[in-house]
């Protein structure tokens, strides 16, 4: 076992304290740490999709560019990319809604509004919003 030692305060003069190093793979050592890191890394899918939309916005100004982009969307590579990203962005949504009650505390007298209610209303909003967006884009098409 390796580690550093450092001298302690005058209270325990003469004794060397042992400092245990934190391993680089600390987040693989416990399930809760691992799930935390997975949650954090979903930001790559979120950011990546924002970039995709940015590219789409850039291509939309030119007919040829947009045609190329649209064809790319139909490609197996795009489908694969979306398939990998979907569970990641959904995991972001789920963890986000579940953690919202921790930051959003609503009091009614002596009782807190149930965290389940707060998270639940987020899920309902998610459902409604998704339906509306799908209806808008598919209905208009």
């Amino acid at each position: 076992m390796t580690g550093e030692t450092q001298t302690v305060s005058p209270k325990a003069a003469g004794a060397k304290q042992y400092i245990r190093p934190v391993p680089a793979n600390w987040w693989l050592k416990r399930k809760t740490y691992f799930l935390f890191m997975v949650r954090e890394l979903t930001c790559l899918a979120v950011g990546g999709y924002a970039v995709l939309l940015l590219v789409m916005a850039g291509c939309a100004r030119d007919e040829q560019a947009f045609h190329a982009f649209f064809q790319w969307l139909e490609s197996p590579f795009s489908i694969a990319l979306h398939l990998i990203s979907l569970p990641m962005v959904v995991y972001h949504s789920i963890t986000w809604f579940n953690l919202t009650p921790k930051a959003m505390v609503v009091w009614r007298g002596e009782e807190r509004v149930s965290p389940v209610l707060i998270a639940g209303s987020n899920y309902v909003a998610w459902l409604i919003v998704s339906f509306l967006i799908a209806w808008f884009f598919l209905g208009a098409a």
Partner: protein
Amino acid sequence: MADETITLEVFRYRPDEESEPRYQRYEVPYREDWVVLDALNHIKDQLDGTLTFRWSCRMGVCGSCGMMVNGDPKLTCAAFLRDYYPEPIRVEPLNYFPVICDLVINMEDFLHKLGEVNAWLVPQQEKPVSDGEYLQTPAELAHYKQFSMCINCMLCYAACPVYGHHPEFIGPAAIALAQRYNLDSRDGAAEDRAEAIFSHEGIWQCTFVGDCTRVCPKDVDPAGAIQQAKVTHTTQWWKSVLMPWGNK
């Protein structure tokens, strides 16, 4: 009852004798109602008097006996042998604190941080004892009660990877205790605490891993306290930016 035993693998560090730590195995009697602390006391009484560790109330209210049990921060007075039997149990000092000797860690950093956040009541208006008590409704009590349950056991620090990587991080319990007083209707020192907790080393180093809340033996929910503090500071911050003429 049969003479069942269970193995404890205990972290030993005796700086006067050896420069490196090691693990020592002990066979202790297995009793269904024993906790890890009972096993450690059996070791000290019957097997090896040199084993050093902290404990006091043995009933989960003093916060003295926190250690790593199979890699998880636990109060050893609340970790039952029967939950691990027949596998061996590894007992180590609390993570992320310097080890003084055996299972005893140096907690001065934590105590210092309690001082930094002014973890005590500072009345808005001092009044003499003759004027009576500082009154509070049940609803006002409810706002901070959960955070007042902290027993300073430091399990949350041993669970926090941010504290592990950045020892300057003020940490879960200190922030939860700051919130306990900030949300107390009798208290008037929220602004004094703000310098400590609204800093980078305060709430803003927290990345909401949430393990502090998971290991807390008193359901304090320090992670919740920290996120609430983030909302508070953010609200204040936008007010000071958009309406700078108000009080600071």
